[in-house]
């Protein structure tokens, strides 16, 4: 509970600050975390070295990217803390979208859209804007600890029209309902949170990757839309979409799920390689991670 109280105290200050000042505080916090965190930085750097093998031989570049990554991650937290006082109207000019035609193509099919992504950038901005202008958005994501923090996070997103569904059977039932209602569901597959992932090559090394989204797509016929969101130097956001992935039914469900997931993973690898400083994963993804 003390973690939630601490978060809430900081959050109630940050939400009252102008954006520039909130970001300045975030960068300060990022600097401390980057320097003193016992595990987060080694894990992140381990992941970055796998994603961009050239960093193995370039410690200066690795150092620079890992610092930028912490910085962007802290700014994403500041965005989250400011969310209770941010309106969609304010956020709208901050977002640029590339690949909107894929989204339109997916919506035209009429089976909802399954946006599959990785832990990059601030998804709240994109979700809130799409929810207000296109179709209601649900995030299909892990439940945070402690519970009170998760509830705050959920209520805060809900007021922007974003539903937050947990990775369990109740959540899955609602995901299917949302897709039946032709809505958008956003999820990420670069981390195996529930522990049921299937080992498959991710940047050339086996990592457990969840097959859930591909299974949903296979069952409902919903197209998968690979998307990444990253921060631009002027603190606006760029959402970038890749061509749609369709899970094809060949009578071998497991094989079909793996094939569709592999296609999506290739797109995500492409996004991450181009913006490693925005891939916020201070977590263990591969075996042997610190």
């Amino acid at each position, binding site marked *: 509970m003390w973690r939630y109280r601490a978060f809430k105290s900081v959050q109630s200050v940050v939400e009252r600050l102008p954006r520039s000042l909130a970001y300045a505080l975030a960068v300060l916090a990022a600097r401390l975390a980057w320097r003193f965190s016992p595990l987060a930085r080694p894990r992140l750097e381990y992941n970055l070295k796998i994603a961009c093998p050239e960093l193995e031989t370039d410690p200066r570049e690795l150092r620079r990217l890992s610092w930028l990554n912490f910085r962007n991650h802290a700014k994403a937290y500041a965005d989250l803390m400011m969310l209770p006082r941010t*309106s969609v109207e304010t956020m709208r000019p901050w977002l640029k979208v590339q690949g909107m035609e894929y989204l339109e193509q997916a919506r035209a099919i009429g089976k909802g859209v399954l946006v599959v992504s990785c832990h990059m950038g601030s998804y709240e901005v994109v979700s809130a804007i799409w929810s*207000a202008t296109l179709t*209601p958005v649900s995030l299909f994501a892990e439940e945070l600890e402690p519970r009170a923090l998760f509830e705050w996070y959920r*209520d805060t997103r*809900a007021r922007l029209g974003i*539903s937050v*569904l947990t990775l369990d059977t*109740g959540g899955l039932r609602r995901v299917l309902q*949302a897709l039946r209602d032709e809505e958008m569901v956003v999820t990420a597959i670069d981390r195996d949170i529930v522990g049921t992932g299937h080992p498959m090559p991710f940047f050339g090394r086996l990592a457990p990757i969840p097959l859930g989204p591909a299974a949903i797509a296979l069952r409902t016929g919903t197209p998968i839309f690979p998307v990444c969101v990253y921060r631009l130097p002027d603190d606006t956001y760029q959402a970038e979409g890749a061509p749609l992935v369709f899970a094809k039914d060949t009578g071998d469900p497991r094989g079909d799920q793996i094939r569709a997931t592999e296609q999506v993973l290739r797109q995500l690898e492409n996004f991450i390689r181009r913006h490693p400083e925005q891939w916020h994963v201070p977590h263990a993804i591969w075996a042997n991670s610190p």
Partner: protein
Amino acid sequence: MLPDGEREKLMKVGLVSPYDFASPGGVTDHVRYLAGRLRNHGQQVRIFAPSSRADIDFDTREFYRIGSPIAVPANDSVARITLSFHLGNRVAAIIEQEHFDVLHFHEPLMPALPLTMLRMSTTANVGTFHAFSHSNIGYFYGRGILHPYLDHIHRGIAVSEPARTFFNRYFPDFPLRVIPNGIDLNVFKPGLSPIRHLRDENVNILFVGRLEKRKGLGDLLRGYEFMRERVPHSRLIIVGDGPLRGQVESYISRHRLPNVVLAGYVPDSVKPRYYNSADIFCAPATGAESFGIVLLEAMASGLPVVATEVPGYMSVLEPGRDSLTVRPKGWAELGAALIILARDAELRARMGAYGHEKARRYDWDAVASQVIEVYEEAREAAREAPRRAEESRVHNAV
């Protein structure tokens, strides 16, 4: 192309509100919706109001931001109005330039913007009275000063019977026509996408309003606590923000009230989805409500209502058909009414269906047509007024 007769009916209307246009509130919403519907009817509309924010998404050509609002405690609430009386020159210039056919004042006797504009206006003036209270010191002591201003108003509207009775208590000889608040049935309707994580096995009770004393949220929290022991699968969703937020949070944590969602301020675009995430709507106000637009929003969304028996609410509700009503401040009765509805899905569905049907009567289109009728009458009266004054001068001279 409109026929000539129709074109003659087209008017240039100025809507004047005393309240901060950037803060949500009943009168502000009313003005915003009325402006939209009048425009749909082909009228040209300009809005005059103070605003605490210049960056808000107004269309600047059609919105005049006049004065900065300050918070003034009034009617167990906080009124954000401008108190600057130096608005005269700017207002006079705008009136001169715009040539309005009708100026429509909301709360016309409210300082400072409506009173200043009323004094300046040379056209047909319509006044809508929204407020209801047990007493009004301003009206009581200010009757002598305010009466001459009333003479400038050619036609008066009250939003409900209680609002009319309240106003006529202080100004008995001023006729008011009751035209209710409207509701946009395209916005508030059943079948919208809910906030999905709120749709589970729980019975959801929804409160929508500013978190302030007169809205009676304290009674609802006690009533909900009483109910939770008997209907464990229930959730209270509180939509709105306000000065009591800290107290509400501390009550919830002190009493360890589970399943309470404090949604905070929810933008208009998302609010209808909250109604669609609820099973029961609860309006526990303690008195000073003239109408309760939230009741209409709930009914239009197909929700059964539990409300307190305050005059403003009773002018809209039919207890037993669309709602269960209890005496104000009676938290145990409120809890009991919530239990009855929470346990009876069939009753909820029946009341919700009745309310949904009834809400059609309050469609903004119908309301705007009635308001346009009043505008026509006011223009007629304004044309008559100088002639009568002239006749009476001639009569006196003879």
